[in-house]
């Protein structure tokens, strides 16, 4: 492991400070640090390499053009940037969904691409945290995990989740909040 999360957050903060001064070397280092988690996330949400590339490209370019969108007083750079990538991925997948729904009626067998094992990389400093987050997810009830999965990784709105699962919107909302709170508790170290 290359240092703990706190050291890494400090490193990010320093790189971001240089980025705000338009330092291309800082940009390149942030790219090296975040390209793989960002691309992994974008691919997981969009399920498509070209779309994931578009998301990652646009996210890094936005970072370069408007570095002050990140306010170091409001948390870690990692959280800010991956949230930005996620937001763009979700927007992209919703846009594509609208297009696809029109074409699927004519061509109902849309293939899925999976199995990308050889492309997977493990960067050590996030690996530890990843293990903890996955373990926390495992401890949620299947219903709680399901709403997080559909919202976060499929990019579905809560209204759509309610439709798909055939449960009231209010239930989706309370279940999501309960799931997030439990994750928070599990990840902040306090015992469940």
């Amino acid at each position, binding site marked *: 492991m290359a240092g703990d999360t706190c050291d890494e957050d400090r490193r990010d903060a320093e790189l971001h400070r240089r980025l705000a001064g*338009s330092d*291309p070397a800082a940009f*390149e280092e942030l*790219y090296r640090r975040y*390209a*793989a*988690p960002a*691309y*992994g*996330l974008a*691919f997981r949400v969009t399920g498509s390499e070209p779309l*994931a*590339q578009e998301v*990652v*490209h*646009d*996210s*890094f*370019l*936005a*970072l*370069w*053009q*408007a*570095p*002050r*969108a990140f306010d170091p007083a409001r*948390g*870690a750079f990692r*959280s800010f940037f*991956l*949230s*930005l990538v*996620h*937001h763009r991925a979700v927007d992209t997948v919703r846009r594509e969904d609208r297009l696809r729904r029109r074409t699927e009626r004519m061509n109902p067998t849309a293939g899925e691409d999976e199995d*990308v094992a050889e*492309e*997977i*990389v493990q960067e050590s400093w996030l690996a530890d*945290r*990843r293990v903890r*987050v996955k373990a926390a*997810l495992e401890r949620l009830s299947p219903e709680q995990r399901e709403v997080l999965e559909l*919202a*976060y*990784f499929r*990019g579905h*709105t*809560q*209204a759509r*989740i309610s439709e798909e699962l055939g449960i009231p919107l209010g239930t989706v*909302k*309370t279940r*999501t*909040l309960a799931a*997030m*709170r439990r*994750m*928070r508790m599990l*990840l902040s170290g306090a015992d469940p």
Partner: protein
Amino acid sequence: MSLDHEAVQEMLAARALHALDDAERVEADAAIAAHLRGCDECREATEGLEAVAADLALVAPPRRPPRLLEGRLRREIRVRGPRRRSVPDRWVAGVVASVLVAAVAGLAIWNAHLTDRVTTAEQRSANTAELIATVSNPASRTVPLITAPAGGPRAQVSAAYIPGHRRLYLFGYLPEPSPGRVYEVWLARNGVYWDAGTFLPDERGLVFVRIVTDPRRFDTLLVTLEPAGGAPAPTGPAVVTAQL
């Protein structure tokens, strides 16, 4: 708008997961902004919920993007330099901050109005939240308007929008027009002008105008001085203008 903590935190959770559509998000932002102002409990919860959402990002297996992408970005940042927009960050941040401070203090600053005169406290805080959300979005564009002589030395207005969103904001400062006159906003394409409404700045000269339209449909934005009640086509002197 009196929402209980649970309802607000449900919105915060959905928002952190990006599980709201654009319209829902704007609505949620307004409600959240109004509530957080007076509630430490929910403000604290915000951080926690956002942290959980950020952690979820790590669950996706990391994947190396194609090398081409890095090369392409490297070229692009050299060509483009840091941000093309020419309004100094600090100026935009300053205007937004002063608007926010005034809104939080509950001052009636949003008396800029478009056709209807909806400027209740809720509407004002919604406007503030929207403007802040817009200019802080990395995808947003901020276009400084060029001041014509009729605008006077103090005039300073910018337009902001997020490509693909049907919202265009004008914000900044304009002098009080002479009695019986108002400012009128025009959007034009190929020389054809659409009336986007009339407004007056507040007593301190602050301007905030929200126009519901896709700005990409137009090539020019123009503000003129017109007789009270507005004009069917731009007749008065141009005050500020921009190419979109």
